[in-house]
């Protein structure tokens, strides 16, 4: 293993650990009543966001869905602002107005999670079109789940990106389930790649629990996109270890299903590979420990952080005709 490659694997490992630690910490905080509202965690799916975003540059943009913590972190969103946002605090990236489902950090090109399935797809293609118009060479990466490919915007957005040759990487995070319903019971045909292909968007499938494989695939597709090849799609198969939301026990799963899946989860897998390839266990433990420490500190900080000033509730609506706070 070359040193370069080792460093890249370690970078993947570190980001995945940070996503996992962030979400486990958030889950604990949610259970403790510190975080209000719905919380969708991507535990088990970290390799996708991580492998893809490692190939993005600072001015590239991403759009995300309801399960967006990993995408945001991998794109470089500030942890303090993210944790405070989940807690609804003044220092959140969205000033406490969005919460988990609307996490966004425009300063790093994270154009927002979305509470509407497939909602990010048209936004992504438009962002790419706008960037080109402005003479930028940045690209846009659009994350969505397997559930989103049954909504109209999937067809419209891919047709659009293909038509205008837009620099968009579509990433379908296929965890085989949409909310409480198995993907195969609601998705006809040969799958997302075939759909994309039929719309003029070439793509590849990848084991989405293998961070290095995702990294490789994304890097190839993104190179094609940057070379002016138009949009591409990455189909990453993965597994959602938790329920749909933090409060969903997902009892409909078959006995043993989740346990079996744990054996393939991306962090353990990359860790095993790194160890097999000679990485020091201590170094890996340190990475993991740092991640947990970082997130735990972020939790404490968020818990101690001030609530938004009530007057801010009236701000950020619009410039013209903004509602006035009753005095």
């Amino acid at each position, binding site marked *: 293993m070359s040193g370069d490659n080792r460093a890249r694997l370690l970078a993947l490992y570190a980001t995945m650990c940070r996503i996992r630690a962030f979400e486990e910490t958030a889950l604990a905080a949610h259970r403790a009543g510190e975080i209000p509202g719905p919380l969708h965690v991507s535990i088990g799916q970290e390799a996708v966001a991580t492998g893809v975003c490692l190939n993005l540059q600072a001015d590239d943009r991403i759009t995300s869905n309801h399960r967006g913590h990993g995408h945001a972190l991998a794109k470089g969103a500030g942890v303090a602002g993210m944790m405070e946002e989940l807690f609804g605090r003044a220092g959140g990236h969205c000033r406490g107005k969005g919460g988990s489902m609307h996490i966004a950090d425009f300063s790093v090109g994270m154009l927002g999670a979305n*509470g509407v399935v497939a909602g990010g797809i048209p936004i992504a293609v438009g962002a790419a079109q706008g960037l080109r118009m402005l003479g930028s060479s940045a690209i846009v990466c659009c994350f969505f789940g397997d559930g989103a490919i049954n*909504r*109209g915007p999937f067809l419209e957005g891919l047709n659009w990106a293909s038509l205008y040759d837009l620099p968009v990487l579509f990433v379908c995070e296929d965890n085989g389930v949409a909310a409480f319903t198995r993907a195969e019971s609601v998705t006809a045909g040969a799958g997302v790649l075939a759909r994309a292909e039929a719309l003029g968007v070439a793509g590849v499938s990848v084991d989405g629990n293998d961070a290095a494989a995702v990294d490789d695939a994304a890097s190839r597709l993104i190179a094609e996109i940057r070379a002016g090849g138009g949009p591409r799609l990455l189909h990453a198969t993965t597994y959602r270890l938790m329920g749909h939301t933090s409060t969903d026990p997902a009892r409909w799963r078959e006995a043993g299903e989740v346990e079996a899946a744990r054996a393939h989860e991306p962090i353990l897998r990359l860790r095993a590979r790194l160890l097999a390839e000679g990485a020091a266990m201590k170094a890996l433990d340190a990475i993991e420990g740092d991640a947990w420490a970082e997130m735990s500190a972020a939790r404490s900080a968020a818990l101690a952080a001030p609530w938004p000033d009530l007057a*801010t509730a009236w701000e950020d*609506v619009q410039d013209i005709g903004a509602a006035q*706070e009753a005095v």
Partner: protein
Amino acid sequence: MADVTLIEAVRLAALQEMRRDPRVWVLGEDVARGGLFGQYGGFVEEFGPQRVVSTPISESTIMGAGLGAALVGTRPIIEMRIFDFVMCAMDELVNQIAKIRYMFGGQAKPAVVVRMPHGIWRNSAAQHSQTLESWFTHIPGVVVAVPATPADAAGLLVSAIRSDDPVLFFDPKNLFPRRGALADIIAPLPFGQARKIRDGKDLTIVSWSAAVPIVEEAVETLAARGISADAMDLRTLWPWDEDAVCASAARTGRLLVVHEAVTTGGFGGEVVARVVERLGPGALRRVARLGQPRVPVPFAPPLEDALKPDAAKVVAAAESLLRD
């Protein structure tokens, strides 16, 4: 007679109707798993996957397929999961379902019920908290139900399922745990009849859906302060009980409309305008509306609380209405 939660009451109502009429069926995401709120719990086991259809995330087609199935004589319950997602199916609802009977000169009656759990609920933020029931009062061709109690929700749902008109049924998300009595056989409750919350003589308070418990609480506080409010729950917004509201307002001379929706463009404006048109301004001393300001629903609990109507705001508004 049982004491049940609102969500159980609507489950029982739909269950009763599906047992009664084999043409009734339900389609929507996860309904074969009982639905997001358990409102279809046990349905697939009893009626099978042909009548309890868990669908793809395809709101346009959930709505449009419901319409198509109604045009050939079935009676679908179209489940939208959360109100806000109906935005993905507005063409099918507003351009198709609402207009098809008229455009086709009465050749078809689209007997669908569209269920849309709505309202501000557990810090779900701007995309999962909307209350736009007033929009649909503006759309010819549809009936609009906004119940607030288990018995009303169940009775109106029975009426909705039996009606040949498309009925937009707003399940009140925030009131699902609310308990109340429910008859063993759920009778259809007619549309357009308000329910009296409290008799009074000093002012009229009109409300519906999630605003009802707020008003219930406020009228107790007001009563304790010697103010006697004549309060009612409209239960349906189209048709709505103009007669009851006008009669009360004519007696009290003061009208307060309370709803969770944004005040501007909300149905409170319609209520006020209609009452003033019918009675003449001279019959009234003061009128006011209380709703959400024209601001999206924020996530942070203190912000959400600050903007949302509550009992204290109702009391304050009522007291201010009485100060001439």
